[in-house]
């Protein structure tokens, strides 16, 4: 038997409980009915890097690679001597015309004013700017290597680095299959960075590939997540799209 006061108190809580149940039902329905966006496996991977601390490279300039391409391989072998040309259709050859170059767009004048000193100073600044080899972002990191801040936030960049170092595929997966394999794994990360659990959100269909992913994840120790993300990474998890 309940006391009268307690009964009234409990009666006031019922609407709250009912409202909570209704909200839960709505969320579950939303999750069941809404189709997840298809994973675009043709999308290039985003390799996250720490942004270098420094002055931002002018946006209008063409991009530069952080590392130049490897040296090109030389030609395979000496070429076969060019054979005598095949009998070409006889044509009358007029006298050679004046060599007019193909049309080029008119260049834009870039005067910076009439003052000679300001022109000189502008030129000096421009040369100094172009002599810089490294660009960064004023909010970057002293240990950063990326030129701009568009390549991911700091923690996800560290997670990416840690997983990438263990992302190794066995040679038994044929070249043919490698072109099309991909899977999505959800990692549950503890406050100390330990991966306590993982599950496949989408398997690749190739057991060897999936097993390799599982090994890669279990071998990886992540850094502790930022305090504001600890709860999310422990309960909701962090998704990783593995692909080629």
């Amino acid at each position, binding site marked *: 038997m309940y006391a009268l006061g307690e009964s009234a108190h409990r009666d006031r*809580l019922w609407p709250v*409980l009912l409202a*909570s*149940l209704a*909200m*839960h039902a709505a*969320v579950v329905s939303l999750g069941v009915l809404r189709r997840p966006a298809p994973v675009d496996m043709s999308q*290039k*991977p*985003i*390799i*996250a890097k720490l942004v270098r601390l420094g002055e931002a490279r002018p946006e*209008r*300039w*063409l*991009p*530069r690679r952080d590392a*130049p*391409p*490897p040296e*090109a*391989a*030389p*030609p*395979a*072998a000496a*070429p076969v001597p*060019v054979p005598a040309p*095949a009998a070409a*259709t006889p044509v009358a050859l007029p006298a*050679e*015309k004046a060599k*007019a170059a*193909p*049309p080029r*767009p008119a260049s*834009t004048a870039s005067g910076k004013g009439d003052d000679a000193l300001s022109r000189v100073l502008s030129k000096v600044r421009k040369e100094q700017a172009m002599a810089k080899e490294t660009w960064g972002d004023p909010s970057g990191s002293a240990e950063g290597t990326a030129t701009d801040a568009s390549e*991911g936030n700091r923690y*996800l960049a560290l*997670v990416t680095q840690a*997983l990438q170092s263990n*992302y*190794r*595929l066995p*040679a*038994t*997966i*044929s*070249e*043919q299959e490698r*072109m099309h394999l991909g899977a999505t794994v959800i990692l549950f990360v503890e406050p100390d960075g330990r991966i306590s659990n993982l599950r496949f959100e989408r398997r690749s269909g190739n057991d060897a590939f999936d097993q390799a992913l599982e090994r890669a994840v279990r071998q990886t120790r992540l850094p502790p997540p930022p305090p504001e993300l600890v709860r999310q990474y422990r*309960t909701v*998890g*962090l*998704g*990783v*799209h*593995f*692909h*080629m």
Partner: protein
Amino acid sequence: MIRSVAVTLLFLPAVALAQRAYIDLGSPDFRPLALAVPAFQASPEAQAEATDTLQVLRDDLALPAVFELLDPRSFLADPREGFAASAIRFQRWSDVGAEGLVKAALRRDGTTLAGELHLYDVRAGREVLYRAYKEKTARALAHRFADDIVQYYTREPGVFRTRVAVVRRGKGTREIVAFDADGRYSEVLYRDSNILLLPSWRPDGGEILFTSYRGGKPEIWGLRLSDGNVRLVAGLGELSSGGVYSPDGRQIAFTASVDGNSDVYVVNADGSGLRRLTSDPATDTSPTWSPDGRRIAFISNRSGNPHIYLMNADGSQQKRLTFQGTYNQTPRWSPRGDLIAFTARDEKKVFDVFVVSPDTGKITRVTQDQGLTNEEPWWAPNGRLLVFVSDRTGRPELVISNPAGDRQRVVTTDASPLANPAWGPLPQ
């Protein structure tokens, strides 16, 4: 307590609704496929051809950079062990790291060379591919084998039987020369004492368009490869240049300067139906077709500097694509449609090759600090490789590269300057 529980339950959906972050992880650490290609077996009269075929095949397979060709000196198995899978000691091949094994046998058949290709999966211990061909030369046989091997592993066509047309400048002459994709064999297709430039292929490979001064001013001519005949295709205004066929071969886009204004035009392949696509007072030039034929990319300096623009094939919806750099030129749309390659001059006044996404406008650099000039890129017909001209060796030579620029190979060693490469179509 019940109140606490109720309040907690109220806010639980907020947790469920929290967005999960995703990261992309690609480029796994895996080795290129290790292939063992031992010496080919051959009948006595075909020994020399067998050696040539083997060398050409090895050079071909090194080009796309998806294979690692093992050193034959490390092989433990007897290469004469036969072709039946039951007779092959696959463990010996596995011991040297081979994942694929290529064997071939050649013999003379009259005036032709008959060759059989056998490809094995070493780990599975079975044959996975068999092909037999008859060709006139060892090179042709080797290119066939290479195409088949690439097709098997990558599910995409190989390009080893294609050719790259290029303008070569000699003493008082200009030539259109066709190099094999590996740059080792060349054939002069056309020679003239007049300036000629900007060759481009018809999609079926039967004709090459080129710009020539042979008529007294720059005009577009067509060279029919079957008999060497040339025809005037378009000669409009003061100059016409840079003709390129649409992917279906029915139309030709080109640049023409009329009354001093350079614009993009389109004409039917037979010369009829001329129509003007651009009319801006600025210089509009260098059209290139999208692989579906619905759009054209071109260069315009209407903003003050030359940049890449896109428009529909009828000239509508013209919009600017590139906003970086001050001198962007020579756009070429990939057959895969995902990228447009182009030449650009950077802030150091060096010309390099770049690619830009037609969807997002994001520019990626292909060459950097590799000579003063890397220019005029053209796509392989499978859209996986680029050819361009580079002066990194001291004179303009052809370089083949993947779009990322991290696998480049100088493929020619010609004594004369080369320019304006145009990669031909796949064999019909």
